[in-house]
């Protein structure tokens, strides 16, 4: 079934074509058909993915690499690129949850977008296009195809954020997302160019992962550092880290399924995926890894601080996403690639659930407001309250997700977050400072998430007249919530660490890809066939010698650190207890502030109004960017427009026309209308001719 991997991206592409070209007509005939096509295509993709995944699991761990080449894409001199897909643990793991959660969100969108007349089909076109791009990104076997998917998801993000483009603010938010992502894409592209030429100097003209990673030791460390930093800038844009995270909170202007899918579970994790995929390259440059870890940690705590005081339910979740992505990068930066990916997985579950849950809340509030003709903001938490009894399914699933994100033991978030914090502390590239920042951010996370839950679901309803009209969402929306709640609760058991008696299946599954194994998967082990095994053994030997010098240093230390415990087991338990204690402390403070003594938050805001305003206004980062970057650019663009394009280019072109006009208006006086003056010209001409011949003859 491996050879049919191309079906996985092609099914959503077919959905795009059908709904895109015929969607308006289909919607006029039957709205149901639109979502049957879209969801059906994703379901088919998911089925194929599941089959391939199960077949992958049947292979022994050191042979889990299979590449399928579909067709040749660019042939230009030394650049030979193919559209080809790679089946290995990392890509299949990503594919499983991306397509699975994508499918659930397609189902959810049926209920959420049902009342959008005339635009229903467009939403599903964009969703399917997004899935197509994301699948290409994940399954690609070379950087160029991954970049195609990278750009494609950025495009779909723009289209979907600005879906309700009649409201100009949404269009502006979409534009902001796209342009900010573009800055990152530029850095990514330059990084790819450097990688290509850097390897090319040694004769390896390829951007295929297996080729690159088996020859990456040819690069000098400064080259590798440069490339990694450029790649990381691309990630800061796509995965919303400092300094290019600014588009993500604004992206909440899009419909909630979009926020759930793109800005929580899938697109924003593509940066994390890219770094995990390039772990061999990153391992070559401790400096770049340090930058990744530091930026990740700073972002985690920075975004958490902003989320503490926001009043819009989606904004809190947006900053929470930025913060959790910071965690993932922290994990990657200290060398715990598998831990970072594990957090990607658990985060996808509970964050998608949180967003979908908030969407259900907003949906209910919107309907209630609609009934009483009220125009208050359905997303403002200060208008909510008491929804616990009115929307029970939403409440219980939301609570499960909140417990997960806060890192309460037993739920998925605990295992992944704790592993990252432990690695941040104990890994040779980590330090206790990074751990401390992460732990404090975890406490803040617990606080603001429970603040959200208490303000939304507890106490009495603050919506006034609309209160009686609030009711549960339709099953098409609550169904996915339940499925995700189950996953958010039990998903963590895939990665129970050794310290707690588990075997960390997740970590073992991803080992061969992360360079910690015997490097067999780093080579182009084409088929797991008879000759393939011998080929792989030879290749592995070669890889070990070649790669050992660089990767094994960092990886070996890490392996030791993880397996044997550079720091003692006691330390690990202690840190676990500390982080749980911090989370419980955060929840306790939230309980006091928002249930027991509700006058405290307002009083604190009064006393520390400077800090409160600073946090509420997102540390004025957007205003800073406007001042320092955007306004000068706009001024420069204005100058280029008025000064150069209109002033110089248009002036020259118009000037030519003006000269012709001026010349002709000077010459036209010759046409006087008097026959006799024409006769003069004839005589004059004759005289000139005669004179010429006369003088020539002389």
């Amino acid at each position, binding site marked *: 079934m491996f050879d049919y991997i191309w079906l996985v991206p092609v099914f959503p592409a077919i959905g795009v074509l059908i709904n895109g070209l015929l969607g308006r007509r289909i919607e006029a005939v039957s709205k149901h058909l639109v979502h049957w096509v879209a969801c059906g295509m994703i379901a088919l993709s998911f089925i194929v993915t599941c089959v391939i995944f199960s077949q992958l699991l049947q292979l022994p761990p050191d042979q889990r690499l299979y590449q399928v080449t579909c067709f040749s894409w660019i042939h230009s001199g030394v650049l030979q690129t193919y559209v080809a897909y790679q089946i290995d643990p990392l890509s299949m793991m990503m594919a499983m949850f991306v397509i699975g959660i994508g499918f659930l969100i397609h189902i959810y969108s049926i209920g959420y977008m049902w009342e959008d007349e005339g635009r229903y089909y467009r939403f599903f076109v964009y969703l399917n296009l997004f899935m197509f791009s994301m699948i290409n990104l994940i399954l690609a076997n070379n950087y160029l195809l991954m970049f195609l998917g990278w750009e494609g998801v950025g495009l779909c993000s723009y289209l979907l954020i600005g879906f309700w483009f009649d409201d100009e603010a949404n269009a502006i938010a979409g534009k902001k997302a796209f342009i900010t992502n573009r800055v990152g894409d530029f850095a990514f592209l330059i990084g790819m160019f450097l990688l290509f030429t850097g390897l090319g100097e040694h004769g390896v003209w390829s951007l295929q992962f297996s080729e690159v990673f088996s020859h990456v030791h040819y690069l000098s460390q400064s080259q590798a550092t440069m490339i990694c930093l450029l790649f990381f800038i691309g990630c800061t844009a796509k995965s919303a880290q400092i300094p290019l995270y600014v588009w993500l909170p604004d992206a909440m202007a899009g419909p909630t399924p979009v926020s759930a899918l793109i800005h929580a579970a899938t697109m924003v994790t593509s940066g994390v995926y890219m770094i995990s995929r390039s772990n061999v390259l990153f391992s070559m440059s401790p400096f770049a890894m340090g930058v990744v870890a530091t930026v990740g940690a700073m972002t985690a705590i920075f975004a958490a601080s902003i989320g503490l005081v926001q009043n819009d339910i989606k904004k809190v979740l947006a900053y929470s996403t930025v913060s959790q992505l910071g965690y993932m990068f922290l994990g990657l930066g200290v060398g715990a690639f598998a831990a970072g990916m594990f957090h990607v997985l658990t985060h996808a579950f509970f964050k998608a659930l949180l967003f979908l849950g908030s969407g259900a809340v907003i949906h209910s509030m919107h309907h209630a407001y609609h009934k009483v003709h009220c125009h208050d903001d359905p997303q403002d938490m200060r208008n909510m309250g008491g929804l616990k009894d009115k929307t029970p399914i939403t409440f219980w699933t939301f609570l499960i997700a909140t417990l997960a994100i806060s890192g309460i033991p037993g739920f998925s978030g605990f295992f992944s977050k704790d592993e990252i914090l432990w690695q941040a502390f104990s890994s040779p590239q980590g330090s206790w400072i990074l751990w401390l920042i992460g732990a404090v951010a975890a406490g803040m996370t617990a606080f603001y998430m429970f603040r959200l839950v208490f303000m939304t679901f507890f106490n009495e309803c603050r919506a006034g007249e609309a209160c009686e009209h609030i009711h549960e969402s339709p099953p098409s929306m609550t169904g996915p919530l339940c499925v995700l709640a189950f996953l958010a609760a039990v998903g963590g058991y895939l990665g129970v660490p050794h310290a707690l008696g588990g075997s960390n299946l997740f970590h073992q599954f991803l080992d061969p890809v992360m360079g910690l194994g015997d490097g067999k998967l780093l080579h182009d082990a084409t088929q797991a066939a008879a000759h393939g095994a011998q080929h792989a053994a030879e290749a592995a030997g070669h890889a070990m010698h070649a790669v050992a010098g660089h990767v094994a240093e960092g990886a070996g230390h890490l392996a030791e650190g993880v397996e044997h415990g550079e720091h003692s087991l006691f330390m690990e338990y202690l840190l676990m207890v500390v982080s749980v204690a911090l989370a419980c402390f955060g929840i306790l403070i939230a309980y006091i502030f928002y249930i027991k003594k509700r006058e405290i938050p307002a009083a604190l805001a009064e006393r520390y109004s400077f800090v409160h305003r600073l946090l509420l206004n997102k540390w004025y980062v957007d205003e800073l960017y406007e001042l320092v970057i955007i306004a000068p650019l706009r001024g420069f663009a204005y100058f280029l427009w008025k000064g150069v394009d209109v002033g110089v280019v248009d002036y020259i072109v118009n000037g030519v026309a003006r000269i012709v006009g001026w010349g002709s208006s000077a010459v036209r006086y010759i046409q006087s209308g008097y*026959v006799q003056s024409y006769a003069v010209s004839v*005589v004059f001409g004759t005289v000139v001719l005669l004179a010429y011949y006369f003088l020539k003859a002389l």
Partner: protein
Amino acid sequence: MIDNQSVYLAISAVLFVIGAAGAICRRNAIVVFMCIEIMLAGVSIAFVTFSRANQSLDGIFMVLFIMAVAAAEAAVGLAIFVLMYRKHGSIDLDKFNLMKW
């Protein structure tokens, strides 16, 4: 020594110039027409002179043609002048500048 041929050619040139000057400077259309005839006469003399000098009859035939053309031209030209007078009440050439820019 100024021989006969030169004198004849000089007369021809003088006649031509007088005709040209008149055609350019006179206001009355009929006088302009007469000046054109003077030009033609001057040219005829030149033709006859050269015909005599080359001892061939080509020049004489040319003059015959000139006569015919002059007659036809006179007829057409005078017809145009009659129409002009009917339209404008005058055949003063300074008054006909409708085709100016």
